[in-house]
């Protein structure tokens, strides 16, 4: 299979990033674009929460307001995420649901193996932990979330290479029960950034490793492209949803 790769690393705000991901899924499911991998950053740093999360249970609204950190709800399930402009690369991929990607759990494993390959290539002993995590030394370095529409899937996820964990810990709320079940006291004890594992990060090399990793995971031959006008136009139609308090505070 051929996989179009869009390196969109200049950075856009959280509302646009979520709108672009949804636009890619919509256009892919209408057969208007090919299967696409996009690598991007959030600028400014921001928070996203999972589709089913109650906002008051997922983020520290007072802290986000104090710091002026933007936040929105994703169309994908899963937990809350702090996206650090200078410490995290996000990936999104839109693919047809077919073959081994049909089973949801298996599709998480296959797509997340792209991250595992990339991290191992960089010297970090990464492992996939179902449902949706990639861990190094038992600590989470990447989380992913997937939605499916009309026979196509969108999966997006993080790779923390130098995320400011103090801000992450203050911005997000982890249920006490979740931490206790993992035998830890704080979110910080549960996560790790790549810099802690392999030292200073060359972002270019990291991006290259991710592209190679996903190419291997999906047995795909990659080619590079840019976002098209139609993708940006559809995203522009969706962006207001992500800014709308009735979407953000819907739970």
């Amino acid at each position: 299979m051929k996989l179009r790769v869009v390196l969109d690393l200049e950075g856009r705000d959280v509302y646009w990033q979520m709108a672009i991901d949804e636009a890619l899924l919509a256009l892919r499911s209408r057969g208007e674009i090919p299967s696409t991998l996009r690598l991007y950053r959030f600028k400014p740093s921001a928070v996203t929460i999972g589709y089913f999360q109650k906002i008051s249970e997922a983020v520290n609204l007072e802290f986000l307001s104090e710091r002026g950190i933007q936040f929105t709800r994703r169309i994908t399930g899963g937990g809350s995420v702090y996206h650090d402009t200078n410490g995290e690369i996000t990936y999104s991929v839109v693919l047809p649901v077919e073959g081994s990607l049909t089973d949801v759990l298996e599709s998480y494993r296959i797509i997340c193996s792209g991250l595992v390959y990339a991290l191992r290539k960089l010297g970090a002993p990464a492992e996939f932990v179902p449902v949706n995590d990639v861990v190094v030394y038992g600590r989470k370095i990447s989380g992913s979330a997937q939605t499916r529409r009309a026979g196509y899937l969108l999966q997006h996820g993080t790779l923390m290479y130098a995320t400011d964990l103090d801000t992450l810990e203050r911005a997000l709320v982890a249920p006490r029960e979740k931490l206790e079940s993992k035998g830890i006291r704080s979110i910080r004890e549960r996560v790790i950034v790549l810099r802690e594992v392999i030292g200073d990060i060359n972002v270019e090399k990291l991006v290259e490793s991710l592209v190679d990793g996903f190419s291997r995971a999906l047995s795909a031959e990659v080619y590079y492209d840019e976002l098209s006008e139609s993708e940006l136009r559809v995203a522009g139609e969706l962006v207001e949803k992500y800014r709308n308090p009735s979407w953000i505070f819907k739970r």
Partner: protein
Amino acid sequence: MRQVSLILRYTKTVRLDVILSENCEVRDITISGDFFAYPEDSIERLESRIKGCSSEECIEKAFSELIGVTVLGVDVEDLKRKLIRVIKSCGENSEK
């Protein structure tokens, strides 16, 4: 009106917020958390079906319509049992 909130820990975490009327009928319910469901709106439809329920049979029926839905990170059977227990214990408390 009574409000009951439960936090249930599976692979993922689920929070159940239930508002019950004086006669133990579910007036409102929110099932929230960091889990995954495919399709996503199946959970909103489940919440709608549960509203108005005051019996185990009604809850059983609401959950039985989750056919073809994939829920990851949650023991749906256990979630259903916990919800039935909420309704039953409301009824028992009302009788006291």
